[in-house]
């Protein structure tokens, strides 16, 4: 009798211990989400901001209890940000490394010249047994060149549609300033994003808004002398100058325009130039430049997010704001799809995340709701900012106006 009671109580204690261990294990589980982007090289600031945004979002989620897992436990998001040096080879190598480990999903990359080949190594169609491509979900925050997500069903993007933004901007410009009739561009010829934005987006949209395209001056990303290009701008005498270039050469050409006394009635810039870099480099010369953007601290959520990212030594702009949003979107998808975050469920969890992202029709963003498209892109709310007195100030909000 005594022996039976002893055995029963031991069994009960053991069962309670196992249950407690299982619960503890679920509560301690890590939900590994990695970021990757340019943490070195001249576009390093993008990587710094993305990492800061990711860490800020993860900290907030974890402080609010973490991610609810399918078995009732909670998981804490663990973030690591890897450097792809804005090169395709490094980007692919970094993702292959992530895919061979316990990472459930990756947010990145920074550069479109990485995203395009990288998506090419993913499995084109999910579930295709004949395709040996990587089965690893990537949720892009920054790389903005149009139409990349359709390369693979494992690729998803939360980047604004530049086609939509610039089409709307040119229409608004023509409506509010009907005296402006012509446009000329300055293009960074050796940077995928800059080239694509002028040739495939702005140059197509401008005539549809009734603007005459007078041509373009070209330079390279690392150029330091813009005298000839500014003479071409002067010769074209456009009403609007669209600068499809990043901050270094944007500032270079604006400074040269000041030296040569060349003025235009309106300046329009590249989305990536609506950043601190431009204001630090040439606030005076860039005064008045108008840029469409999918982020500005105009809502309480946006302001709070910007303050959080600043704690991690980054700043929130249209690119890093997407990183921040991505972490929250992934949290929601993981909870809805019932991710387990166990060592033996990694691939199954990845598939759930992929399915969950593919099924999304709408997501919450810092400026409002974004729609999801069938080809895994986003249609995000946007507004126009202009540089004024060394700051980016909202010029017009197409949604509320």
């Amino acid at each position, binding site marked *: 009798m005594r022996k039976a009671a002893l055995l029963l109580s031991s069994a009960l204690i053991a069962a309670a211990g196992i249950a407690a261990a299982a619960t503890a294990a679920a509560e301690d589980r890590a939900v590994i989400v990695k970021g990757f982007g340019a943490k*070195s*090289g*001249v*576009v*390093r*600031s993008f990587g*710094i901001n993305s990492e800061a945004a990711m860490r800020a979002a993860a900290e907030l989620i974890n402080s609010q209890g973490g991610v609810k897992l399918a078995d009732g436990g909670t998981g804490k998001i663990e973030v690591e940000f890897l450097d792809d040096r804005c090169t395709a080879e490094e980007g692919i190598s970094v993702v292959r490394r992530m895919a061979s480990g316990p990472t459930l999903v990756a947010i990145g990359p920074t550069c479109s010249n990485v995203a395009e080949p990288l998506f090419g190594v993913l499995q084109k169609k999910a579930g295709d047994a004949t395709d040996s491509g990587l089965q690893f979900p990537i949720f892009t925050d920054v790389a903005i060149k149009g139409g990349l997500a359709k390369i693979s069903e494992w690729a998803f993007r939360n980047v604004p549609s530049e086609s939509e933004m610039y089409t709307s901007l040119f229409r608004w410009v023509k409506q509010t300033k009907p005296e402006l009739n012509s446009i000329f561009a300055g293009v960074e*010829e*050796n940077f995928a994003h800059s080239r694509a934005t002028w040739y495939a987006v702005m140059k197509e949209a401008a005539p549809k808004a009734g603007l005459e395209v007078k041509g373009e001056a*070209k*330079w*390279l*990303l*690392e*150029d*330091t*002398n813009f*005298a*000839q*290009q500014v*003479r071409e701008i002067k010769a074209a005498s456009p009403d609007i100058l669209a600068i499809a270039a990043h*901050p*270094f050469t944007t*500032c*270079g050409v604006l*400074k040269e325009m000041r*030296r*040569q*006394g060349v003025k235009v009635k309106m300046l329009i810039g590249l989305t990536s130039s609506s950043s*601190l*870099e431009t204001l*630090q*480099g*040439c606030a005076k010369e860039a005064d008045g430049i108008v840029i469409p953007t999918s982020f500005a601290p105009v809502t309480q959520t946006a302001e709070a997010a910007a303050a959080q990212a600043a704690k991690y030594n980054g700043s929130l702009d249209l690119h890093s704001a997407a990183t921040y949003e991505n972490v929250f979107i992934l949290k929601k998808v993981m909870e809805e799809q019932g991710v387990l975050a166990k060592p033996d469920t990694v691939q199954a969890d990845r598939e759930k995340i992929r399915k969950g992202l593919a099924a999304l029709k709408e997501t919450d963003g810092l400026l409002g709701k974004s729609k999801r498209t069938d080809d895994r892109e986003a249609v995000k709310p946007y507004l126009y900012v202009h540089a004024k007195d060394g700051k980016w100030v909202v010029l017009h909000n197409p949604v509320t106006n």
Partner: protein
Amino acid sequence: MGFVDYMQAVIDGLLFGTTYSLIGIGFTLVFGVMQKINMSYAAGSLAGAYCGLVGPQLLGLPPWSVFPLSIAASGLIGYLIYLTCFRFIPLASPLATLMSTVGMLLLLDEIIVHSTAGMPQNYPAIYDGDPIVLGDFILRADLMGVFLVCVVAMAMLLALLYRTRLGMATRAMAQQPVAAQLCGMRLQAVNGLTFVIAGLLGGVAGAMIGAAVGMLSPLIAGPITVKGLIVTVIGGLGSIPGAIVAGLMVGAAENLFQALRNVTERDIYVMLLLFVFLVLRPGGLFSGARGRD
């Protein structure tokens, strides 16, 4: 584009080309003395220019202080490069110093990128006024200032080399190192001083490039290194007059090629120019006989 545009392109190129001349002279000075190429020279010049910004940005000094600080910093960086990449490296090994200086170039680049988060930094101009208009031509007054400063720097260098005992020692060491040592000249001291002088010159180049562009960015280091090497080869390894002429030639040529063709083909033609020299005149413009002067 008409004749005026092409001439304007050549003039702009000549004015900016003086900075290439200074970089070329730096490469050629070191080669002349040590028979080695210092691949990190342009990066060191740029790093010195960045260091100069510490004055106005962190110490509250007036903007013009950036120029002497950049020059001094580049001189110091030049000496540090000598110590780390040449002084204790086995010079007999043909690849040793090439590898060490390439490593230094990458290190300096990364230090700049990490210190500044890759963000371009504003750099004051020599002169911020209106350009000079001469008929159909526009001469940037600040580029004229850059041109003058570079010419003065070159003149001072030539005076140092041909009118001072240090210059004589440098030339002696370049021409007959064993005989120079037998005459009591200290090899390491002369080599170190050569790097300092080249560094100071590089500081002038870095500061003038920053002043001409209006900004500094890590993007500049690579192209300036390549241009400097092209100038050195076209001018003739070890020839200072060659580097001066070649710098102006490369500056003018790249602007002219850009005007004639477009920016995407510009560098192809500059490389073709280099190729033509390598094939037809491999010693460069002023390849002289090696010996004593």
